[in-house]
Structures are given as C-alpha cells and as structure tokens.
C-alpha cells in the first residue's frame, strides 16, 4: 500500500479548526501549522492538559527541598549561634526556600516546554511551508492513496486555498501525535 502526504493551506482560522474536527472524526490525526497562537486550534486538537505542569511542579518541589537542605544543612554543619536564634532559623530560611522553588520551577518549566514542543527541531519539519509562518494555516495528513481523493474533497469543502499531494516512500511513518 502506498501513502501520500496531503497538505492544505487556509486563510481563515475557523476553516482550519473545522477541517481538524472533520479529520479527527475520520480517525486521522493531522499535523497543524499556525502563524499565530490559537486557542481554538489547541482545543480542537488536544484533550487533557499539558504535561509541562508536571515539570513545573516537580521543579518547584525539588527547589523547595533544596532550599531547606542548603540552609538547614549549612546551619547544622557550622552550628553558629546568631543573636540567640535557634540554629535552624526557619522563618529566615523560608525566603531562600521560596526563591529556589520559583527558580527551579521556572527552569523546569522551560525545559519541559522545550521537551514537549520538541524544540529545537533538528530536521526539516515535514509538510512545512514558509507561508505557514506568515498568513496561512496549514493542515497536513498522511493517508492511503485510495483515501486521498476523499481527503482532498474534505479540504476543499472546508475552504482550503490550495491542496498539495506528495507520494511518500514506502517506509515513511505517519506523524502521529508529535510535532503539531
């Protein structure tokens, strides 16, 4: 069986969203290019929450624990009495704990974003065209040769400005969930 890559470009965000919904109904998962951040496209494509939240929480917890470890560890290591305060002066240490929590949470969030977004992309992204960074929305889907006419009709019904078709080598893997 041979596969083809179908890429449609749209001038309108609503047309793009409508196309995504139609493709998902046919159990085809598209790759979408958008020149702008679009909450509507995100809602159409994704169910559930971003995993970056977990990265931020983990980083924050790690940072807070590190803050306690650094402050309490060094205090007990040196055992200095400052003005009659306890060796472990928790109220003062809360500031360091808080700042490290924010720092590590932020760094973890950035790393999580880069990981989940697969940035930087070291290889050219299949289906991308420079006008998807300008004034066009792009929807790409890999499908069987026999389905290509139906998919092309779906794109044109949705208002695609143009539709391109490119045969794929026999070993190509469909985009799946990644790189949207």
């Amino acid at each position: 069986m041979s596969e083809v890559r179908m890429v449609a470009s749209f001038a309108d965000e609503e047309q793009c969203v409508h196309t995504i919904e139609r493709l998902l109904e046919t159990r085809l998962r598209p790759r979408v290019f958008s020149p702008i951040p679009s909450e509507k496209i995100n809602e159409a494509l994704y169910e559930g929450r971003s995993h970056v939240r977990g990265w931020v929480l983990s980083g924050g917890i790690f940072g807070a624990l590190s803050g306690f470890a650094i402050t309490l560890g060094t205090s007990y290591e040196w055992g200095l009495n400052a003005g009659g305060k306890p060796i472990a002066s928790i109220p003062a240490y809360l500031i360091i704990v808080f700042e490290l929590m924010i720092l590590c949470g932020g760094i973890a969030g950035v790393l999580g974003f880069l990981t989940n977004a697969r940035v930087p992309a070291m290889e050219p992204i299949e289906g991308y065209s420079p006008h998807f960074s300008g004034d066009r929305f792009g929807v790409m889907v890999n499908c069987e040769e026999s389905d290509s006419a139906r998919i092309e009709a779906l794109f044109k019904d949705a208002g695609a400005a143009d539709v391109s078709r490119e045969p794929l080598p026999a070993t190509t893997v469909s985009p799946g969930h990644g790189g949207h």
Partner: protein
Amino acid sequence: MSSNSESTSRASAPGTHEPIQLSLGSWTTIAVVLLVVGAAGFFLALWMGLGARAWQAYLVNLLFWMSIAQGGVVVSTAFYLSQGRWAGPAQYRLAEMFVGFIPLGFLLFWGMWLGRAAIFPWVLHPVADKAMWLNAPFLFARDGAGLLLMTVLSLWFVSASRREAVREWAKTPNNIALPPNIIRRLSPALALSYAFVYSLLAFDLIMSLSPEWRSTLFGAWFFATAFWSGITAMALTAVILQAVFGDRVVFFSRRVQHDLGKMVFAFSIFWVYLFFAQYLVIWYGDIPAETFFVVRRSIMPWVPLSIAMLTLVWGLPFFVLLGRRPKRTPKILGTIALLGLIGIFVEDYVLIVPSLSPKVIPYGWVEIAVTAGFLGAFALCAFPGLRRVVAASSAPFTPAGEME
C-alpha cells in the same frame, strides 16, 4: 431576592437577556431588623457598663466594613488604570457596589469621639514623647479630613464611572481606546489618596492602640488587606448572583469566575507577603519594643485566632485556589471568598482587641449585636449598588475570550 424580569432562562451566552430589575423587599426588612438590633445592643451595652467591649466591637466593625466598601471602589480604579474590560460594565458596578457605606462610615467614625477614652489608651494615659501626634483632637481632625477626602473622591469617581460615555467604553473591550478623561484624572487621584489615608488610619486607629509599637509597613499592609477584602466581597457577590440568576448574568461565565478567582488568589499571596515582611524583621531583630505586639498575639488566648486568621486569609485561598478548576467552580470560589471575609474580620479583631484586652478574648452578645448592626447598615447601603450590578450584568455583553 426575586426577579421582576419576564425573560425565561435559556441556554445561551451569558448576559444576552433583558436587564433584570431586582426586588429586595424582604432583604431590606431583614437588614433594618439587624440594624435596630445592633443599635439597641450597642446602647444597652453602654448602659450596662460594658462600654469597653462595645467600643472595641464598634472599631473592629467600622474598619472591617469600611475596608470592603473603600477597597471595592479602589478595585474599580485599578480596573480603569489597567483598562480591564473582561466583564464589561458589570465588573465596575460590582466593584463599586458598596460605595454607599463610605459616607455612613465617615459619620460613624465621628461617633468614636464619644468613646475615645474607652478605645485609645493614650487618652487617659498620654504618652509623653508622642503627645503631639497622639491626642484626640488632632487624631480626629486629620483622620476625619482624610475620610472626608476619600468620601468626596469616591462618590465623585463612582458618579463619573456610571456616566453613559464611560459605560460605553467599558462595553467595548476589543479596542485600545483609553477611558474618558474624567476617569483618567480621578482614578490615580483616588488610588494615591487611598494609599495615604488608609495608611494613616492604620497607624492612628490600630497601631496607636499599642503606642509603644511601630511597624513601617503596617499602613501598606492594612490598605492591601482592604483591597483584597473588596475583591473577595466581589467574588462572593458574583457567585451568589450566578447561583440565583444562572446564565442571565455575565458572572455565570466560567471565564469571569476564573478572573475573579485569580484576583482572590493573587492578592491573598500579596497579603501574606506583606505580613511576612513585617513578621520576619520583628522575629529576627528580636527587639522587645517590637516583639511584644507579636508575642501577645502568639500566646494564649489569642493564638488560635491568629492561626485562624492566617489560614482563612492565606492558607485556604492559596492551596484551594491554586488549580484552574477550583477557581472556575462557583461553590468552591464562593466558599473561599466567604471564609476569606471571615478571616479579615478575625484579622481586624486580632490586630485591635489584644492591645486593649490582652488576657481575655471578649466575645458575647455585645460583639454579636454590634456586628449584626453594622451588617444591617452595610447591606442597606449596598442594596442600591446591588440593583445596578444585577442590571449591568444581565445586559448584553460577551466576556473577553468567550466564543460568540
């Protein structure tokens, strides 16, 4: 509450129905009863020789309800200064809802002149090196002038905010037009005056009750607390209105609830930030002249109330409203807002009363009656504003970001 609107409820975008005309007949009766009970209880307490408790409760309630009223108006100035139009005219009417209590609060402030000896310890026992500042005539003159300024500015500002041109500006979020000139002049004037006057009130009416103690940030903490109490009262009102009127009001929108929840969450963090900034310095400096104020509130019998204050004003709002979903769940947001307001009341109580009654927590029918009286008065002052909120929130408007 009952609605005179003949619109039927239908599943559609919020605020697309005919404006609702609110009737508050039975609630007005309840408020009047509370007011009468409160006034009677207050005078009965004075007659029975419980004047100290009556005046303490009077001061606590005056500051608590004034904070909500004034804080709400300042929230409206903040909305104008940041050009926020995420809920249209309704968010402004909601913030300004309690403005009616401000003139009454100004009058009630002067009532404290009669109880000045019971409230301020330095009246009967002057502090020699602070006598120029802490004397009754000067205190009442400067605080009275400040409150008069706030009253005039607040009423002027709210009157301007209700003008046709300003309401039209608030209805159109999808442009970068600035608010009308009158608002652009009054908002910063009111906000700056608020910071100054409410800092002064905090120093004079709370900090002076322990005349040996001082904290530079105390004034800022007090007006930040008042700002948060305004936001919290707004959130509670919005939750109640959406429960009563459903999708006929813009507060039914989960996005609007989310915005209110975010403000409740964020400014409770600001509150604890300012609290901790004072606490840490006092704790680490360990200077007796500073620590006695905190110690008195950290030991029995006051420590449970102090812990309750921290929990209700910061602990619960922070941990419960951390996630997205709780902020968009009316019952959760409303519960946290109600508990937050109780926490602010407890905070005012913990700040004021231990300075006057360090070993005993005075609580009984006197405090309940006086609080009921102030609640009734506040409600009566807020009802006209509530009608405007309901009318504005039921007028056609699609919140920013909602699908049309």
